[in-house]
């Protein structure tokens, strides 16, 4: 075709105990292009990239980089040979400074053994300037918001001057403005002749940025096409293996009487300043806002995962405190948290325990002995209801793909039969097919008479399934819109009100 | 080191036939890391090997539970003679437990070094103790200290106040030897002094309730004495006019630790000022310090003698006799099977 390939991965196979994660997958990346990699959760995208980057050893297949066959044994080797990667899960030394993270593994030296802080600082500034990133190089990583940490990670990958840069779901924790920023960076890299592999579940991004698209399903290669020849519908069809005509299920929930009233909610140690709103039975209430506007804080304060400064919460007219998550759960609340790995999964435990953990009380026989049978039944229900892709109930959850992990946690909360379901970015990192299923679940729950509050950075999603949308800005509830007759512009205006 | 292994395992069920079977001896040391005990162990190993007896050594590591488990294990392995340096000495029960175990198996048991009560020994006809007369070391040490002081009173009394201030380092709480040495090492010295018209020794820290410093770990260790001494020295010095003028230690290990600390302050280097330091055991290294003039005296505890006395009992058993058959030449207590190996003073060659 047009140019010689920069990277060729041929017939890559990778097996984990009990799972064939990759089955003869091939991928060709040309210089100066963006090659998107798409597929459902668990299709094997991250695994393919980890095989390239020396994190996993492939079982079969060849990798040719710049005309030479390579097989990196470690990330160090990959980096030294011009392959850099932004990982799906943030991997940073949080107790160290931005600068220390940026140059980790390749500190500039003087006199053979001393690290030159001044060179490091200078180069950091150069890179940040070039990429227009505004982060203090000396700041300790853990004090930065997630999105800024992600930008540092991106800057780091770019700074290797690599030939191939892999972005594994880089935008899942970025704001729209930052996504635009990233795209500018990617375009710059393209101009330099880099080959870019871009993994994302966000269709619009893919269609905007990529030149070629490879689609995977169940560890197998399905198709590689030019992006300009593809439509969203086609991609979905290739990914899911069937037609998916609507991105959102029909909305047939009927909001009823008010069940939850929140007045002047404010956080003690966090930036939530003031939020008052109501939630109705059978309603899906969205929360929109820019990153750092305090959306997560609304949910976590409500749920008792953060300490409240002031404000009242009334459930069915009765005041409740929700001081701790435990109390909130007793009051019929459930919270799907934003950071799955940090606050969601019990990595080393199996699917069953991850599913039933919040609902243990209902399995007690005779008041103190847990019934294995009942736990198994409920887990099976969750696996089937959510279409969780797992070899068995006794599989460790950490070996599932991110999206499937997310489904297990949703299952965990559904089992507690909550009355008010709080969802923080419920479809983050989830493929289109599964998204549809999750939307369906949310609407079904609403139909059953539950109240759902859902934070999302994806505007179409909020507009697609919510009844009303609250807009946060600078820690304050800036306004409320009716999802049926509002526009993205109206929401963005409100979101900018207090910044 | 350890003896060769038995090929033929004697029966443990019979009570009377042990005399004729080959000996399978278990030797239980309270702690391998104890220096004096190591010297007993070397002699014992040598002599047991020379006798051609099968034996197994055990390290109690200062832990009675471990030693109890070892004794039970040895018995279940067909041991037919136990030689025990019991870990817990401050009550008779641990030793009594060992005796009960031996009794059930019908085998003789010899305690050594760490003394067990008369009742324990008398509770079983095949039980004996080989050790020293614990107070004797204290008495001899006290005597030695007193005599040394009389001869060198004015040199020792650094501040010239006519009183000798001292420190006492105790090896362990609740150990018969340690108790006796701590008590008589001072009392007898005082007796010598007062008989000569001198005032009694004065503990360096007048306000202390206990007139000794003890190794809290119960290990009679040089390190403990060293740490204490290093802490005492800056407060009690010649410049302050209250320098410690005499150091009495329950054993040589502690004495060596004290000497080393004194050396840090410029004393006991062989030339120049020497604070008299006394110990017990006469280990090689202590004897050398004494010969070099860095330490003053010690009481010889005869490790070899202790081992050969024990071996004497062992050979009686081996010959089919009773434990105490050939002990007329030894110093045996009245009414109880306890043999006392004598101490001797050592002040250099």
């Amino acid at each position, binding site marked *: 075709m047009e140019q010689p390939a920069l990277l060729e991965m041929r017939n890559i196979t990778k097996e984990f105990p009990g799972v064939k994660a990759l089955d003869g997958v091939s991928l060709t990346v040309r210089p100066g292009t963006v090659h998107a990699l798409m597929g459902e959760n668990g299709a094997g995208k991250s695994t393919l990239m980890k095989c390239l980057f020396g994190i996993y050893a492939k079982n079969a297949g060849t990798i040719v980089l710049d005309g030479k066959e390579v097989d990196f044994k470690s990330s160090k080797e990959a980096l030294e040979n011009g392959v850099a990667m932004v990982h799906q899960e943030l991997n940073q030394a949080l107790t160290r400074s931005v600068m220390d993270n940026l140059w980790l593994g390749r500190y500039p030296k003087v006199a053979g053994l001393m690290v030159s802080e001044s060179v490091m600082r200078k180069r950091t500034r150069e890179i940040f300037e070039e990429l227009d990133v505004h982060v203090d190089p000396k700041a300790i990583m853990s004090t930065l918001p997630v999105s800024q940490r992600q930008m540092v990670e991106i800057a780091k990958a770019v700074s290797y001057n690599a030939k191939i840069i892999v972005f594994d779901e880089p935008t899942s924790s970025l704001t729209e403005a930052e996504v635009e920023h990233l795209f500018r960076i990617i375009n710059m890299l393209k101009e330099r002749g880099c080959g870019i592999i871009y993994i994302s579940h966000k269709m619009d991004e893919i269609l905007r940025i990529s030149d070629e698209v490879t689609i995977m399903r169940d560890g197998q290669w399905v198709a590689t096409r030019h992006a300009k020849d593809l439509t969203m519908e086609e991609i979905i069809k290739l990914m899911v293996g069937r037609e998916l005509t609507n991105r959102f299920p029909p909305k047939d929930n009927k909001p009823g009487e008010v069940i939850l009233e929140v007045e002047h909610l404010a956080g003690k140690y966090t930036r939530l300043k003031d939020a008052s709103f109501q939630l109705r039975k059978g309603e899906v209430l969205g929360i929109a806002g820019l990153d750092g506007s305090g959306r997560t804080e609304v949910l976590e304060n409500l749920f008792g995962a953060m300490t409240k400064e002031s404000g009242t919460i009334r459930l069915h007219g009765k005041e409740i405190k929700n001081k701790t998550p435990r109390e*909130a759960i007793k009051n019929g609340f459930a919270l799907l948290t934003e950071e799955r790995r940090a606050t969601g999964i019990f990595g080393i435990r199996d699917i069953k325990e991850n599913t039933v*953990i919040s609902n243990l009380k209902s399995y007690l026989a005779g008041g103190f002995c847990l019934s294995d049978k009942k736990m198994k039944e409920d887990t099976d*229900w969750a696996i089937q209801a959510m279409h969780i892709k797992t070899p068995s109930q006794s599989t460790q959850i950490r070996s599932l793909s991110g999206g499937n992990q997310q489904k297990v946690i949703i299952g965990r909360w559904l089992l507690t039969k909550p009355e008010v379901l709080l969802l923080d970015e419920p479809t983050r990192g989830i493929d289109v097919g599964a998204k549809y299923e999750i939307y369906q679940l949310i609407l079904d729950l609403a139909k059953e008479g539950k109240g759902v509050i859902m934070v999302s950075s994806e505007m179409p999603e909020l507009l697609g399934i919510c009844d009303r949308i609250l807009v946060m800005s600078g820690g304050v509830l800036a306004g409320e819109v009716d999802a049926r007759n509002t526009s993205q512009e109206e929401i963005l205006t409100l979101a900018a009100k207090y910044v | 080191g350890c003896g060769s292994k038995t090929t033929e395992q004697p029966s443990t069920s019979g009570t009377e036939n042990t005399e004729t079977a080959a000996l399978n001896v278990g030797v239980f040391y309270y702690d391998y890391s104890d220096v004096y005990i190591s010297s007993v162990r070397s002699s014992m190993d040598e002599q047991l090997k020379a006798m051609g007896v099968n034996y197994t050594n055990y390290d109690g590591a200062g832990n009675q*539970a471990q030693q109890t488990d070892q004794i039970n294990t040895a*018995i279940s*392995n067909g041991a037919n003679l136990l030689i025990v340096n019991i870990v817990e000495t401050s*009550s008779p029960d641990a030793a009594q*437990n060992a005796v009960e175990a031996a009794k059930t198996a019908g085998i003789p048991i010899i305690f050594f070094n760490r003394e067990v009560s008369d009742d324990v020994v008398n509770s079983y006809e095949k039980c004996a103790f080989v050790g020293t007369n614990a107070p004797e070391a204290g008495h001899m040490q006290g005597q030695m200290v007193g005599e040394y002081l009389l001869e060198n009173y004015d040199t020792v009394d650094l501040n010239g106040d006519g009183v000798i201030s001292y420190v006492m380092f105790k090896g362990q709480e609740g150990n018969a030897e340690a108790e006796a040495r701590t008590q008589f090492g001072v009392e007898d010295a005082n007796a010598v002094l007062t008989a000569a018209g001198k005032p009694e020794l004065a503990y360096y820290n007048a306000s202390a309730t206990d007139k000794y410093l003890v190794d809290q770990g119960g290990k009679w260790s040089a390190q403990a004495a060293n740490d204490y001494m290093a802490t005492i020295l800056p407060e009690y010095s010649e410049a302050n006019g209250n320098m410690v003028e005499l150091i009495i230690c329950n054993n040589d290990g502690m004495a060596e630790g004290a000497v080393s600390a004194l050396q840090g302050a410029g004393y006991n280097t062989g030339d120049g000022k020497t604070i008299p330091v006394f110990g017990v055991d006469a280990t090689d290294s202590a004897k050398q310090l004494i010969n070099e003039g860095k330490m003053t005296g010690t009481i010889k505890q005869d490790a070899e003698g202790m081992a050969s006395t024990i071996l004497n009992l062992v050979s009686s058993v081996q010959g089919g006799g009773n434990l105490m058959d050939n002990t007329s030449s030894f110093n045996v207590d009245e009414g109880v099977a306890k043999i006392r190996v004598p101490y001797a003073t050592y002040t250099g060659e």
Partner: protein
Amino acid sequence: MCKEERTVNQETNVQEKEARVRQPWTAQRVGDILLNNALLIIMAIAVVYIAIKNPNFIKPASLINILSQTAAYLPAALGIGGCIVLTGTDLSAGRAVGITACISASLLQNAANMANKMWPQIGTLPIPVVIVLAMLIGAAIGCFNGFFVAKFKLHPFIVTLGTQLILYTVLLLYVQQGNNKGMAISNLDPSYTGFVKGSLFSIGGTPIPNYVLFAIVLTAVMWFVWNKTTFGKNMFALGSNEEAARVSGVNVFGVTVGVFALAGAMYGFTGFIEGARIGSNTANTGLNYELDAIAACVIGGVSFVGGIGKIRGIVIGVVMLRLIFVGLTMVGVPQDLQYLIKGAIILFACALDMRKYLVKK
């Protein structure tokens, strides 16, 4: 709908089982099975080897000796196992055993011999009271540890190091109380020693001490707690991800304190047993018990990574250590070398076990 679902479940189960059965016996699979059970296999080989070298090893008296020793050390290991599941450890275990041993012994002394009685005014307490008291004291120590760990987010290593020191003072002071004056606490009442060391059964003429029975009961209780109770499940969840546990409604503070308290109660029970088993209780009693207990847990696959461990593994770990202890002397390995062999086996066993958790590349 529910019924329909259940049939589906059963089908999957059957399928899963079949799938397992149908797996071919490749060299890889045999190798895996061997490696995964390597510890048990090595243990078996060792037992056979020792028994051949020294037939005394498998005589009833010897087996019961091993059994008894296992029983004596098991409760503390079961307790500390929970702390390890929480990614922690407990260095105060030994001193807690020491204190409860001294207290148990001092309350169960023979009133016939007043002179040697620590608390002449108290008399000899009923045994159940003392058991409960020892376990409560242990639990209180555990609560203290758990409180600092949970409240201040301190690492258990450092908290329990602090507690260890504090308890040593308590122990030193306790043995100086009453009539005791720092001596060993002994002169135990026959009812006490009889209860612990006496026996209801015997095998091949060798009596099995009662504390073996107690250990069996405690093991069963602990198995139940770990596997069948909310507390147990919460403990594992907490050990595997504290933050996730918190938002999942686990009472993190309560479970942490609970795990340490339960461990403490186990030390208390161990103290009660050791008080009579060793018979002479001093400030040294219990010293370093935690090290063997921790080693046993880790050998048995309880991992410092947190959230991983089985009661069965702990039992195997304790047996393993006791086999080393007894077996090495039986085959005539000199005592000096035994430390080395024990250390090497700990390293080897753990390295072997860790293979399971290493994410394969």
